[in-house]
């Protein structure tokens, strides 16, 4: 098959859906937390103590050993009715990940060609810059191991052609997994259905372009106000410290510092040292001073 092939590899130029995506339809989530359990099970994580705060939520935020959390929120509409919102919170696997921008360790955070953003524990130095870089408040520092952890989108399962554990466990079909293209199509269709047939005029897809789109997308009842779903940012941004400061100014300043070193060398070569001058001999000074 390879012989006689003028292209660099067989199948050159063929179309392929490379990017994977998880679709979370918040309108069909029933808050059963099967995905939470499946995540802990598959990743073989130790028990994380739960916190009861008068809601159904397992704990206030995700934890180093708890990467997948359903956030329960009660939202009051202007007409006085209540919406009980359930949103599966986990890493969004941004196309332009803030954590990766911020990370100073080689190979600690990797973005695979299929869009999964993965943390490699063995390379993590525990600086926590990724926590600051992430607009979704996802990376979690474990003080006992001094490393940071988060959802891997089950990259180990995806590599074997399986869906992530949370998707596998979902009983309502609210979670779907496939190519980014397919999931976007299904999400848009579902949003259209919600707008046309169910009266959710603002229903839409959450795939924020400010981080280049995400590989976990949501269908929301009201895409104009994602904040109501437990602080899902409307316009997630990466601090400029980790974008233009880190990738432009740091190298530029570093270069100037090195040039400064060179400048000092050439200053010495061209101008030479300032050598101490011998002071006038005291005796002569006194003698001459006495007899001008």
């Amino acid at each position, binding site marked *: 098959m390879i012989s006689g092939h003028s292209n660099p590899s067989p199948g050159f130029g063929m179309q392929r859906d490379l990017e994977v995506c998880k679709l979370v339809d918040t309108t069909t989530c029933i808050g059963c937390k099967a995905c939470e359990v499946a995540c802990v099970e598959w990743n073989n994580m130790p028990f994380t103590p739960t916190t009861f705060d008068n809601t159904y939520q397992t704990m206030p935020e995700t934890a180093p050993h708890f990467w997948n959390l359903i956030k329960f929120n009660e939202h009051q509409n202007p007409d006085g009715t209540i919406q009980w919102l359930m949103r599966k919170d986990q890493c969004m696997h941004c196309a332009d990940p803030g954590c990766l921008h911020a990370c100073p360790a080689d190979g600690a955070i990797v973005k695979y060609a299929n869009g999964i953003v993965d943390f490699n524990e063995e390379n993590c*130095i525990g600086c926590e810059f990724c926590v600051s870089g992430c607009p979704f408040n996802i990376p979690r520092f474990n003080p006992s191991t001094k490393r940071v952890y988060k959802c891997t989108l089950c990259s180990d399962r995806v590599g074997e052609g399986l869906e992530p554990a949370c998707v596998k466990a979902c009983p309502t079909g609210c979670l779907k997994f496939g190519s980014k293209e397919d999931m976007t199509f299904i999400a848009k269709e579902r949003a259209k259905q919600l707008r046309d047939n169910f009266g959710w005029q603002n229903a839409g897809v959450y795939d924020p372009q400010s981080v280049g789109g995400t590989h976990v997308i949501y269908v929301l009842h009201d895409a104009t106000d994602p904040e109501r779903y437990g602080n899902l940012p409307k316009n997630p941004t990466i601090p400029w410290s980790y974008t233009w400061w880190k990738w432009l100014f740091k190298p530029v300043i570093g270069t100037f510092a090195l040039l400064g070193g060179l400048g000092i060398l050439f200053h010495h070569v061209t*101008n030479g040292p300032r050598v101490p001058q011998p002071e006038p001999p005291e005796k002569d000074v006194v003698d001459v001073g006495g007899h001008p």
Partner: protein
Amino acid sequence: MSSRAIENFDEKARDTIERAGRTTIYHGELLRHPVYTRVLHWSVAVFFFLALFSGFGIYLPWLFRWFTPIFGGGQLSRIMHPYFGVAFVCFFALQALNFLQPMLWAPGDTRWMRNVKAIASGEEKMDPPETGFFNAGQKVMFWEIVAGCIVYIISGTILWAGAQTFGRIPVAVSYVLHDISAVIMLGGIFIHIYQSTFGEPGTFDAMIRGAVSEAWAWTFHPAWYKQVTGRDPEQACEEARRNMAARSKP
């Protein structure tokens, strides 16, 4: 801690260290830096470079990743860097206390700064007559380090505790401030090392054995020379010239 207690501590530390070593002044030399000052200077220097090198790998890993193995890898660099930094700041705080008096800005320093180009280029062979124990360049560097240390303490504490404690934006801002402070200090240290070794020969001895030649003091710190020897450099200079003229007359 009251200022009295700080002064007492400073005096006690000075006496203790002073007893532990000695400064030998040979003929034709002056005492420049006592043992206490030297010990502090080199403690500051050691921790400055430990903090600097452990920070390099975190500053720009794609350029400085070869620094991290010195400290046993990235993880250990990250863990040790704040401790090196704290030690640097603590030793420098003692040095600041020690140097506070001679580092105060004097009117002559402004004139020195205006003249800095001629002095740095060597056009002016000698420093201006009002240059005291420290010249204006040294004072600028000293106060820059004081300001830099304050920035380090604030931004470093935020970076050390991390975004989970202080929030992501304070960490992002501290990240930039910490860098700027480090780069300014790095530039300063280049000049400092150059001037004290090759740039003005004889200066290194001041910090190594604490003594300088009278010629050195006469050339670079005339006002201090006048103060410790009682001889007026300007007058001496003038007289030397007259002396030379008188000698060449017949």
